[in-house]
């Protein structure tokens, strides 16, 4: 007995089947192509941006993400449901393609059949299970969406259409299989290679051959119609994501993570800066909206959203898309809302988790740029005061610039102006220089370096704010003027290596300053100290400590430095009790995105929320690695009334105590 089956059984393989069938295929594909060409015109309203460089790597990145569902499955349950559904449906697609390939090409032209024997057995059983798994996963997703809907999961007509259509396609597939098997395979060994179909065939065999044949034929055409309908509906519904999200993996930002586009401020022909309208964003910003599946993972992780602020990264992305498609002249700032845009801490939690490689943060910064550079607007007068203070004294705290190096007076370190022969330049940052609490961290770091025999130099009063908070607030002009002065100074001294204790300085020097030709290597103190310890240059006493550790957004998500700080804590004898949200899922302290300069006027305080998460671990010390975080936590423990339970500390302090 040959293990195979007759393709086009019962429907016939003549022109009466093939002509209408292929006509339908052509129509469906034509609709998809035409509609996407139309959509491409909408994307093209945006500014140009090259996202087809390194095409090979881009394509392999796309395949990995599509086929392995890498980003999707990062969120366990719904990710797995989607992944299994996708893999099942993808196998069915391959199966159908093989059938078409054999029946209408290899067999038709060369009389060659490959769907037979062992291969057919495997083919049959895999497709049978793929269909079952798809159906079950679809059911699970259906129950999640319609019976146990997670908060914030937007459910629209699209979702109903998608669920309905997919279910019918899968069910009719099984009906076709069952009716065919009831007539041709019952009682043969072939049947056991399609267990689901076999079961179905057994239960409908009573209908008799004529009825089964009619049912089969009708269902076959119905199934075909629905599949073609599904294809044609891709551009009109969220089915779109099959193509757009896949394409978004291809067009994804390849980093460095979180580096912002520099505006050309010398260009005398520019009349606008930043974005107010869709046409002032890039095509990718519009395309992102098409790639969004409204999975709301970004919203679930947004610290602003979590504390009752009006920002939902998902909504912002989609509002931009909606404007692009319906009213491209719309003022995006009014449409989205200023409070929404000012709420962002640029913590990157949205972008990091997004299964569609959407870039949320740069859009918000582009819109902020327009508010600041074109309107002179800020989230509050306190921010304007901080900007002006930075213009005058080079720090947002408004402290006289000349005292910037005073903290180091008794440490015996010199400024580069006094002695440029150094091992490392310590770029101190504003808080480390002026804020009493953070001066303790700066001193600790220097003492650690000195203990390791490293010669540290600082810029002293010549150092200026790195410009990060200003840039993230949208003040590109002030950022660039600060950055240019710093870069010129540092390059002028011929510095080879810079170490920072502030992740914001680190990210800015390491990535953003490259646009301005900063030559030196830049390292965060956590990685640097870890190297000093592991190479034996720095010796630390191990002394027990029960603590929890906060991943700052700019060391963590922006730079993937998760392990070095933990290794340092362990080396110091600390045991870390991880918080509910840690590593790439870490919860912001509230001070990123320039929010360190702003009053938090709306909703619950983010820092208090985070401090409470730390309290929940039961650890007595909250270790962090960022002056902004530390400032927020010092405030936060007071605000939450847990000063006696939780003590915020920086890693550098922890280590310096154990010298």
């Amino acid at each position, binding site marked *: 007995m040959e293990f195979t089956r007759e393709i086009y059984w019962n429907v016939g393989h003549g022109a009466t089947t093939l002509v209408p069938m292929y006509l339908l295929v052509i129509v469906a594909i034509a609709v998809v192509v035409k509609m996407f060409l139309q959509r491409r015109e909408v994307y093209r309203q945006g500014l140009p941006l090259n996202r087809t460089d390194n095409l090979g790597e881009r394509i392999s990145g796309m395949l990995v993400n599509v086929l392995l569902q890498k980003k999707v499955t990062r969120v366990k349950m719904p990710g797995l449901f989607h992944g299994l559904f996708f893999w099942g449906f993808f196998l069915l697609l391959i199966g159908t393609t093989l059938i078409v390939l054999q029946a209408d090409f290899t067999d038709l032209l060369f009389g060659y059949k490959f769907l037979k024997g062992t291969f057919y057995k495997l083919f049959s059983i895999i497709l049978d299970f793929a269909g079952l798994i798809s159906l079950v996963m679809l059911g699970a997703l259906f129950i999640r969406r319609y019976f146990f809907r997670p908060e914030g999961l937007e459910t629209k007509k699209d979702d109903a259409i998608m669920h309905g259509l997919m279910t019918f396609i899968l069910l009719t597939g099984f009906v076709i299989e069952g009716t065919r098997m009831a007539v041709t395979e019952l009682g043969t060994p072939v049947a056991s290679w399609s267990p689901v179909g076999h079961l179905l065939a057994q239960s409908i065999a009573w209908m008799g051959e004529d009825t089964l044949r009619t049912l089969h034929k009708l269902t076959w055409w119905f199934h075909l119609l629905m599949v073609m309908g599904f294809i044609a509906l891709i551009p009109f519904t969220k089915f779109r994501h099959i193509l757009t999200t896949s394409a978004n993996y291809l067009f994804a930002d390849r980093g460095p993570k979180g580096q912002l586009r520099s505006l050309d401020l010398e260009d005398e022909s520019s009349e606008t*800066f930043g974005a107010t309208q869709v046409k002032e964003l890039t095509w990718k910003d519009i395309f992102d909206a098409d790639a969004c599946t409204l999975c709301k993972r970004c919203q679930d992780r947004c610290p602003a959203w979590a504390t009752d602020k009006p920002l939902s990264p998902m909504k912002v992305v989609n509002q931009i898309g909606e404007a692009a498609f319906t009213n491209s002249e719309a003022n995006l700032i009014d449409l989205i809302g200023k409070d929404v845009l000012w709420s962002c801490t640029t913590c990157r939690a949205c972008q990091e988790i997004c299964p569609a490689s959407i870039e949320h943060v740069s859009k918000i910064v582009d819109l902020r740029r327009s508010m600041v550079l074109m309107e002179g607007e800020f989230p509050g007068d306190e921010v304007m005061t901080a900007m002006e203070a930075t213009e005058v004294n080079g720090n947002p705290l*408004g*402290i*006289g610039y*000349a*005292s910037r190096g005073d903290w180091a007076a008794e440490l015996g370190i010199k400024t580069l102006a006094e002695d440029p022969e150094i091992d490392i330049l310590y770029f101190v940052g504003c808080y480390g220089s002026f804020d009493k609490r953070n001066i303790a961290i700066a001193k600790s770091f220097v003492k650690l370096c000195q203990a390791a025999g490293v010669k540290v130099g600082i810029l002293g009063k010549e150092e200026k704010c790195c410009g990060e908070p200003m840039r993230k607030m949208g003040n590109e002009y002030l950022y660039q003027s600060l950055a240019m002065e710093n870069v010129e100074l540092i390059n002028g001294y011929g510095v080879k290596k810079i170490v920072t204790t502030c992740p914001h300085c680190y990210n800015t020097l390491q990535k953003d300053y490259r646009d301005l030709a900063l030559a030196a290597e830049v390292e965060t103190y956590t990685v640097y100290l870890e190297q000093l310890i592991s190479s034996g240059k720095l010796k630390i006493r191990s002394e027990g400590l029960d603590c929890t550790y906060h991943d700052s957004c700019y060391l963590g998500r922006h730079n993937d430095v998760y392990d070095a700080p933990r290794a340092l804590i362990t080396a110091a004898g600390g045991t870390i009790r991880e918080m509910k949200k840690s590593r790439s899922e870490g919860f912001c302290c509230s001070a990123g995105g320039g929010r360190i300069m702003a009053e938090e006027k709306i909703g619950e305080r983010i820092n208090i929320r985070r401090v409470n998460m730390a309290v929940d671990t039961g650890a007595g010390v909250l270790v962090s690695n960022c002056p902004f975080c530390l400032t927020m936590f010092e405030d936060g423990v007071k605000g939450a009334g847990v000063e006696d339970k939780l003590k915020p500390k920086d890693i550098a302090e922890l280590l310096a105590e154990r010298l």
Partner: protein
Amino acid sequence: MKILVCIKQVPDMESKFKVAAEGTWYDNQDLAWRMNEYDEYAVEQAVRLKEQVGDADLTVLSIGSDKVKETMKKALAMGCDRGAHIADDAAWNKEPFQVAGIIAEYARDKGFDVIFTGMQSQDRGSGQVGVLVAEMLELPSVSTIVDFGYEAGTIIAKRELEGGIKAKVKVQAPAVVTCQLGLNTPRYPTLPNIMKAKKKELLSIPVAELLKVNARMETANMFFPEKKGGGLVLEGEAGELADRLISILKDKTTVLK
């Protein structure tokens, strides 16, 4: 309509001041410079007036070395049309009467309808220049305004008096007004305006052409104030500090019984 706004570049008051070697003024080293805060309100109000009347030409004037042009550029970026820089490397040593004399000489034949100045400078703090300019030009003046309105040649202003009380006054232009903190919210210059400001007229006039009056006073000595006698500094742990303060208050005042 012609408007003049006079501004001064002063050190940021957060700076660490040192008395210069000659002992009559502060040392310029290690100071950060900015627009006198009172003058920021004056510039903002002048720009608002210009925007209100539409057809107006707004000149910003400042006296000092080339360095003050940086501050003037901010005023131009905020919306002034042109700059008159009175070049004077020894401006720090001019007393208010001379400063007013220079401004009055500049403004004399130019037919300004409204002249704005800050109520005082943050460094010298004499609060005389605006009113003196008016006296020299025989114009009426209103000092310390916290509210400004203009309608058909009439200025309607509110002066800030002590205790939060305001005096409503009215005066016909041409006139001089001096601006108090809180008069408005000075704008943050937009980037297109910063770029435009770079191309605006900024003429330098040697101070010798305008200085026609002699100084009436001079600084004999500049020095740091002594701490008030008995000024006791308490440092230490909060609880202990509170106990010490309570015992001092019981001892030295009648309020804690």
